[in-house]
């Protein structure tokens, strides 16, 4: 099919697979297809396509839940795309089919809840009737709020001064922002500073409505002037857009799971950020070379994927 587009589904999904494999932390596991005879899993974390670029986020989500005795199954890969990519390309029928495949696929695990980490997935699944599924589909922040008492009992102080970045375009995103703030306020030692310029556009950053550069710069300048150690963001897409600003402004960017992990004593790495802060495709290729060779990937192809995924 001649698409006439700069990107095809193949290039996009192959980038998800390729970069996802290259950046995956040790011990990070997910399934692309739940077996028909799979044992019931109360909680499923949906690892959305672009979240493969920041694999510590779903990995931390699972580890945080394990801290309070809640095991879960991570289901991901392009095989569980919500259909956002097809929506973006205005392939309405493919969007609908893709969304339904993912939503019905989750049922194989007979979950009580399917936990989202991506606002795009929430929007697309919501448009295709996820509320009619036998499980509850919800942003994972809702579960953290449900278990906040248990989380709080295990928290140790995190001595950081932070600014929280957030989105409020609709009620769901407002709720995510409120939940994130409630979770962060529960962490002892954390100083949440009163910023005025931390509101993001759209339902998240990066893909469709990236935060305009002047607004982004203003957010970081304000954070620096307030004496913030970090800007804490609610979504993987915000994290991807903003983490490069560390180079210029010296204010660290964290996904809020990072802060929660610190409070719970969970160690983690941030492979996407580490690569982005190298600030050069060549340097990233060199850093990833052992894994590129181990996985037998074609360097030219990987170089294009790094450019597309990490330096876009």
């Amino acid at each position, binding site marked *: *099919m001649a698409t006439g587009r700069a990107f095809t589904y*193949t290039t996009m999904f192959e980038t998800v697979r390729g970069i996802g494999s290259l950046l995956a932390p040790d011990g990070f596991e997910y399934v692309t297809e739940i077996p028909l005879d799979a044992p019931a899993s109360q909680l499923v974390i949906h690892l959305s396509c672009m979240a493969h670029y920041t694999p510590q986020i779903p990995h931390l989500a699972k580890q945080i839940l394990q801290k309070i005795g809640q095991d879960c199954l991570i289901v991901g890969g392009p095989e569980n795309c919500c259909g956002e990519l097809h929506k973006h390309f205005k*392939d309405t029928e493919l969007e609908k089919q*893709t969304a339904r495949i993912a939503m019905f696929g989750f049922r194989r695990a007979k979950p009580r809840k399917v936990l989202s980490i991506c606002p795009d997935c929430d929007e697309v699944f919501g448009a295709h009737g996820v509320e009619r599924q036998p499980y509850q589909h919800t942003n994972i922040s809702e579960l953290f709020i449900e278990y906040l008492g248990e989380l709080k009992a295990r928290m140790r102080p995190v001595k950081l001064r932070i600014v929280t970045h957030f989105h409020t375009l609709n009620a769901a995103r407002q709720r995510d922002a409120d939940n994130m703030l409630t979770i962060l306020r529960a962490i002892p030692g954390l100083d949440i500073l009163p910023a005025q310029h931390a509101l993001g556009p759209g339902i998240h950053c990066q893909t469709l409505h990236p935060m305009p550069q002047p607004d982004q710069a203003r957010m970081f300048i304000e954070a620096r002037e307030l004496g913030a150690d970090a800007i804490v963001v609610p979504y993987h897409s915000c994290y991807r857009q903003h983490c490069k600003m560390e180079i210029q402004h010296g204010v660290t960017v964290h996904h809020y799971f990072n802060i929660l992990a610190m409070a719970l004593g969970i160690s983690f790495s941030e492979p996407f950020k580490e690569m982005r802060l190298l600030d050069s495709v060549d340097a990233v290729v060199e850093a990833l070379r052992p894994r590129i060779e181990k996985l037998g990937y074609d360097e030219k192809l990987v170089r294009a994927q790094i450019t597309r995924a990490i330096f876009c």
Partner: protein
Amino acid sequence: MLHHWIDAGREAQFPDGLHPVLLGRTRVVIARLEGRLYAFDALCPHAQGPMEKSEIEGLIVSCPLHAWRYDLQQGGKELHGYRDLATYEVRVTDGQVFLAIEP
């Protein structure tokens, strides 16, 4: 293996690209790629994606739903090691295209 050679139409009906065809109750895609005819299932073995909307790179066709990629040169082998795509032998006789489909 016994095959039925099914008449799929005139060769001229299948210019470059992908062409969905219904043969009895079997839906297939007849593809002319790099000047040669290939035939394969119209539904992706992963989740029944529409293979007539595949993206094409040489002799590799990719399902548009999740980009499972099938190499027609290797009989429909899925390149990530997932399930393969069923392909059919194609024969052209006097400008007429026949597919070998199991009864």
